[in-house]
């Protein structure tokens, strides 16, 4: 497993305490799990995602990722409606390991409240949380 200092934590996304990332792209927010989460989980073999059109509150469980070790719930860092899911993960769940911020994104959300993303952590705050 990676040391904290070796983690890939880009500056252009926001981080949740449950190790998801969120990235504003116009009116839509892309969501995924971050490098720390994919590294801790190990090789991911299945991703369960919600349906397009489902709505969730901030902090709701919206799916799960299954690795060789365990099944882990994933929580939506902002509330809103699911407008797109990453269909590619059905046949290639390894994208979450190989490219967690790009090809391995999970869902795209239309936020119910544009201010919620502002409450998430930036890289420095998230790193501080990991280091405890």
């Amino acid at each position, binding site marked *: 497993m990676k040391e904290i200092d070796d983690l890939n934590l880009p500056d252009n996304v926001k981080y949740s305490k449950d190790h998801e990332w969120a990235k504003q792209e116009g009116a839509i927010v892309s969501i995924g799990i971050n490098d720390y989460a994919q590294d801790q989980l190990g*090789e991911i*073999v*299945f991703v369960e995602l919600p349906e397009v059109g489902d709505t969730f509150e901030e902090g709701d469980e919206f799916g799960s990722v*299954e690795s*060789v*070790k*365990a099944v882990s719930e994933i929580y939506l860092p902002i509330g809103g409606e699911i407008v797109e899911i990453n269909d590619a993960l059905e046949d290639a*769940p*390894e994208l979450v390991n190989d490219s967690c911020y790009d090809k391995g994104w999970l869902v795209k959300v239309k936020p119910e409240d544009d201010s919620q993303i502002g409450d998430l952590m930036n890289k420095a705050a998230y790193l501080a949380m990991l280091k405890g």
Partner: protein
Amino acid sequence: MSQQPGTSGLIFNEPQLWDKSRKGRCAMSLPKLDVERVELDKTLTGDPPDLPQLFELDVVRHYTRLSQWNFGVDSGMYPLGSCTMKYNPKTNEVQAARQGFASAHPLSGDEFSQGALELMFNLEQYLAQITGFDAVTLQPAAGAHGELAGMLMIHAYHAKNGKQRSKILIPDTAHGTNPASATLCGYESINIKSGPDGILEPGTIAAVMDEDTAGIMVTNPNTVGFFESNIKKIAEIVHSKGGLVYGDGANMNAIMGIVKPGEIGIDVLHLNLHKTFSTPHGGGGPGSGPVAVVKALEPFLPIPRIKKELDTYKFITDCQDTIGRIHTYYGHFGIMVRAYSYILSMGAKGLEDASKLAVLNANYVKESLKGTLNLPYDKPCMHECVFNDKFQNKYHITTMDMAKRLLDYGFHPPTVYFPLVVDGAFMVEPTETESKEYIDQFIHAVKAIAKEAKTNPEKLKKAPHLTKVTRLDEVSAARKPCLCG
């Protein structure tokens, strides 16, 4: 017994039956057709089943060779925590094979099944006595099925009282199947965190228990191997709000003959005959998960129930509040015979001694390996002890690597990565049926592996080396499963 049991040897390869199939090959010869051939209507028959075509020796060699790849408690120590892989005495098999039991048929009727009914009735009585409850059903097919039956009874109890509840409390040290059983009954599981010493604290329960909560599901001893010593207080809190206490008795092997769960506030408890009562576990099953209840829950027991009138036994089904049938006929009767045989051959004192020795053996393993493996909770344990891979992580060796390497030493690996409350868990349950010599061999093997983690970590990462197949690619198997014949 200084030599380790694991060694290399000639092991036969064996293809899949489909690869051995040859068109027209058959295990029997039928007499020549001496009447006119009549084709049946195709819409009635459909296509013939697609089966491999083999002769007798093909089939015999196939399964004999597969059986030689197998590992069971008859071939070596199987310290699988939370599973109680104790030895299954051969006398159990002798009794179950007796013609009267082996040939019994569930449709023979009560009149011709008196011996079988008497055995089931007596087994219910023994289990009630061992657990301190008022009544028992033998029907559930395994532990999780017993949980479901028990939770259905709790659900029926609340319905009968006029107000259904919506939640159930489940500690993080309970068995993983508990939330599933509760969910099937329509309850929402509320996860309860155990305290810093690995057991539940009454205050945590008091803070969340309310009159919309149906009860709590407690595994005692819990999955970290500790006795929930606050159980009486916890039961009082749950009862004071009108809830019920479900006891997961899968770990009964630590307390059988010593603690009666029915006397410490538990209302319903399942047992695993295939753990505690020495019937076959796993592929050799089937399982059996009897459920014991207090008087207040007796009306809800599944039907049929067995009743004794004078000296005859009969099934009764006219129980108004029953949760209904949960199994075809009367459960796994052949397994009940084996458990009955175990109880009678051990006797009350013998059952108590089994639990004491199970606890002693686990504590012996814990003390012997403390320092070799990290022990997250350093206090006396019950029938199993939980280590993790913290000491080995600095060599980039994980619990999985050590578990795989144990195969080379001739041992079945312990339970790994469970319970979830311990990161990288390595949970050992030696059971009472292993001698000190066998346990010492296991301890020696784990110590040798911990040494290899420092001196030759690459060897561990690629382990096992001596087995029929070496490290499997679990990731590809899960991502791209091949499920065809």
